């Protein structure tokens, strides 16, 4: 097991963790504040990739694509929230799951109608194409470093937004005590729309920034959505900090597991057994982690206050 590969895979895992965090942050806020189980968050990931990707292709600049995607997703998120989700707040979780499941079917088909079944390829912008030497013999793709840095900046921004600003104060008040926030004269429907819009932007950003690596595909958000569920279950619902830590943990463990579990198993198992068990076990690794954490802490690592 050489340390170059180890470092690379660690960074890959970290980068997956960043993507997961961008998804999980919106999901956990929407759930923590509005008590809404929102499967269609996965669709926001996909729509961000398609809309942003198209904007990038039209303007010829990936950066413009990202910048223009932000207001676009804010609007799309708020429209979706106003039209279809507002009535769901008062409903039970079952209704929310089903209705947002219906939205996923709708969005997937709508994207298929607009962009066709093949998906959308967005080229990697020139200035981040290529790799950079990190020293000690390690080279790493520039674009993945950009993703990591961008994700960390967003995480920091989100942290400042929630802990330092007025809207952040309202978000925290809403998350811990909705009735009290209402009594303080907060415009709750407005707050919900804004939070949902922010969540949609974050999910869309996540979808867009991995598009140069994976291409935009129909249904691309769903596997990420389920991983993000694992993340917020581990991190504790409603906690941004929990979402961040659990995202990185999940991303790193999943990626490292896929690369090194078979090597690790060779220590205990004969070669052919290790080679066949490796991929199977590594795909289960994060779920085992989730089960283990829940066994000791049913509310996740950072349980919501007052629960």
């Amino acid at each position, binding site marked *: 097991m050489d340390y170059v590969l180890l470092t690379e895979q660690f960074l890959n895992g970290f980068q997956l963790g960043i993507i997961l965090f961008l998804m999980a942050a919106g999901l956990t806020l929407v*759930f923590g504040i509005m008590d809404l*189980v929102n499967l269609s968050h996965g669709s926001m990931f996909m729509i961000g990739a398609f809309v942003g990707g198209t904007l990038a292709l039209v303007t010829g600049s990936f950066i413009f694509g990202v910048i223009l995607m932000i207001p676009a997703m804010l609007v799309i998120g708020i429209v979706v929230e106003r039209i*279809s989700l507002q*009535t769901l707040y008062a*409903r039970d*979780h*079952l*209704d929310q*799951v*089903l*209705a947002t*499941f*219906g*939205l*996923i*079917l*709708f*969005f*997937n*088909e*709508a994207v*298929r*109608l607009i962009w066709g079944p093949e998906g959308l390829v967005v080229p990697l912008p020139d200035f981040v194409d290529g790799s950079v030497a990190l020293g000690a013999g390690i080279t790493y793709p520039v674009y993945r470093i950009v993703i990591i840095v961008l994700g960390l900046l967003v995480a920091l921004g989100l942290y400042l937004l929630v802990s330092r600003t007025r809207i952040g104060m309202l978000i925290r008040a809403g998350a811990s005590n909705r009735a009290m926030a209402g009594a303080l004269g907060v415009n709750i429907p407005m707050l919900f729309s804004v939070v949902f819009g922010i969540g949609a932007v974050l999910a869309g950003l996540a979808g867009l920034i991995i598009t140069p690596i994976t291409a935009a595909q129909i249904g691309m958000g*769903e596997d990420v959505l*389920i991983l993000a*569920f*694992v993340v*917020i*279950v581990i991190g504790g*619902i409603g906690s941004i900090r929990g979402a961040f830590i659990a995202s990185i943990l999940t991303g790193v463990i999943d990626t490292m597991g896929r690369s090194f579990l078979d090597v690790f198993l060779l220590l205990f198992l004969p070669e052919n057994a290790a080679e*066949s068990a490796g*991929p*199977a076990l590594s*795909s*289960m690794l994060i*779920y*085992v982690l*989730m*089960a283990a954490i*829940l*066994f000791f802490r*049913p*509310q996740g690592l950072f349980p919501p206050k007052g629960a």
Partner: protein
Amino acid sequence: MDALRNPTNILSAIVIGLCAIVPFAAPAVGEPFYVIVFARIMIWAIAAVSLNLIMGYGGMISFGHAVYLGVGGYTIGILAFHGVTSAWIQWPLAIGACALISLIFGAISLRTRGVYFIMITLALAQMIFFLSVSAERYGSDDGLNILTRSDFGVEFYDLNHKLTMYYTIFAVLVASVFVSWRLVNSRFGLVMRGAKSNDTRVQAVGVSTYLYRLSAFVIAGVMCGIAGLLQANLENFVSPDMMDWRRSGELIFMVVLGGMSTLFGPVTGAFVFLMLSEVLASITHHWHIIFGPFLVLVVLFARGGIAGLLTPRSARE
């Protein structure tokens, strides 16, 4: 009879009756294709009945229920792959596998409540899904063909015989509804329904509900696993798609569409769901664009499902 004046029961009787006569009626009207369609519908109906048991009567919203279709099916597929075709070995093992997995998954997920439960059942099911995808030996994504159906070793009972296969599924469906009915109305069922209605109060009369909920979870897992083993036999094929998370979502929808916490609701729900998909898919390739919003509308405006719509307003609370 009071029961016959209830439109829901009449509809259920019609659906069950239809299932009973299709092998003779369909060829008679020149649509033999419907025999296989109905066989498929009945398998989904069994799965939906099993989900209704825990979701409708026990309040446990499992978003990973289709995984037991996969576990039941793959047990048959893998055994057949290795040359074990005797039903006397296959079926008990398939049932045992589903019991074991639902026991483990239930033990973990029932420690939590509400939305955590929904997400964890989904995630655990996804784990088995990815396991099947990564199992190259058994076909990964492409699935696994099953060359011979389960063999009972007796001449008069052969699943390769079309009618035998069909009526086996029919019998299992009727049995699963009957078993649900007995369970729901038993002492066990009273605790289960009580835990759905007001879990704290059940604890406060001295019953720790965990083991009851877990038992119900395992019973439902096994019942769904039987649907899976039937599906493997009917299609001569298993694939990860059987336990895709969307299948779990569709199962939930079937139950809600037909009428949650009603005995026959899941059966009519499965019937209407699959027939509607069939019809919509024949109209347009992009039928999900209609189906998605339809699902949303059902949730928003027809909460009681078909059973709710058929029940006169005065008879509701």
